[in-house]
């Protein structure tokens, strides 16, 4: 059981107020879609939720406890996908994924987890290919396979569909759906249409939350 929420969050970047007085709350199996124009603070909010940024005001809590109290356990329960894919050019696809998974799960059974995650994104045949030969979309798939390989209840995905083809977006939708069925929560910023219904929509332009409808997901 988990509940992740933030109250009265204010984010200031370079002396500019990005957003203020923002509240959100998400529970097991929930999905929160962040929308808003460029520069409205979607990435900043996700980095804030991950703990990479500290809010200028307000607090983030997990089951009522402030996440800043224990950054390591907060890090342990979340997966963050940012703009960079963290794929090492000198390591093979499987080595890249299994390194990140090895920090979270025991060595026993790691191989199967990694193989399963690579298979989920259709890159199992690339397992031995070094990262430097991958295209942008393949690198993004490796990054998404990284979060599929090790379980974590909270996923923070910052425009995860960048560079992905349509078939892989479907794979991602399937993965997010099964993650939610297993009780996980997901917070996504996106410009493209990911089907996640039912989901809540947090509009950064107005800082209001409402149920996500189909046309909002455009």
């Amino acid at each position, binding site marked *: 059981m988990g509940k992740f929420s933030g109250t009265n969050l204010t984010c200031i970047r370079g002396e500019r107020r990005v957003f203020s007085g923002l509240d959100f709350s998400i529970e097991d199996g929930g999905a929160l879609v962040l929308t808003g124009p460029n520069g409205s603070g979607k990435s900043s909010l996700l980095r804030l939720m991950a703990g990479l940024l500290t809010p200028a005001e307000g607090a983030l809590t997990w089951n009522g406890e402030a996440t800043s109290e224990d950054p390591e356990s907060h890090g*342990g329960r979340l997966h963050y996908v940012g703009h960079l894919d963290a794929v090492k050019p000198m390591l093979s696809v499987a080595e890249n994924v299994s390194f990140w998974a090895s920090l979270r799960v025991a060595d026993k059974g790691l191989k199967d987890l990694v193989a399963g995650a690579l298979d989920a994104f259709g890159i199992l045949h690339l397992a031995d290919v070094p990262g430097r030969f991958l295209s942008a979309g393949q690198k993004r798939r490796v990054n998404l396979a990284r979060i599929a390989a090790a379980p974590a209840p909270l996923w923070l995905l910052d425009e995860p569909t960048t560079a992905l083809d349509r078939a892989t977006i479907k794979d991602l939708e399937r993965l997010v759906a099964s993650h939610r069925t297993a009780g996980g929560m997901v917070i996504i910023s996106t410009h493209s249409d990911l089907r996640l219904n039912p989901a809540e929509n947090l509009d950064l332009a107005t800082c209001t939350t409402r149920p996500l409808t189909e046309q909002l997901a455009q």
Partner: protein
Amino acid sequence: MIGFIHILRRDLRLAQRQGMDSVMAVMFFVIAVVLFPFGVGPEPNILARIAAGVIWVAALMSSMLSLERLFQTDYEDGSLELLTLSPITLEIAVLAKIVGHWLTTGLPLIVAAPLLGVLLNMPVDGFPMLILALALGTPSLSLIGAVGAALILGSRRGGVLLSLLILPLYIPILIFGVSAVDAVIGGFDAKPQLLIMGGFLLAALPLCPWAASAAVRQAVE
């Protein structure tokens, strides 16, 4: 602890595949030392007198040469963000990277140092102490250097800034490292110098990963 081993293993594997970093550090070390006989002339007595100092200064420089890359590549490809967000304590992760740096650049220097001692006509009595002093000193160099390497993240021309930041901090290690070798060659006991260098290492071991982690957190913000 498991995370420490995984990060160390990854960094060693990367160093082994890229290969160039450790080879370059050693080559730079050798070439820098070899330049001295050309500069100061081939008199064996003068070379023997300055041997320990030259080897130590060259070791400082070559250890610093590869430090810029310690966090830079991870910073640029986003790995550093993910390391900050992993369940591993960041200080432990940073320490693993520092140990990796020392194994790939500090250790080869220790192996190459006696050879350069021969080239510079260093008295044979000093060799064991040179190795021992380098073994105590080079880990401190990697530790202190990591703080500088983390501080320069995100800055342009980081390499020059790095040397300005950390070379002054290397001076105590240089002084006691050279003086330990000179003491043994002169027939004295080098225990005080070794104890002081050991003290540096023991102080740097907890303090430097802590300071470097703080700088890394600042950099990924």
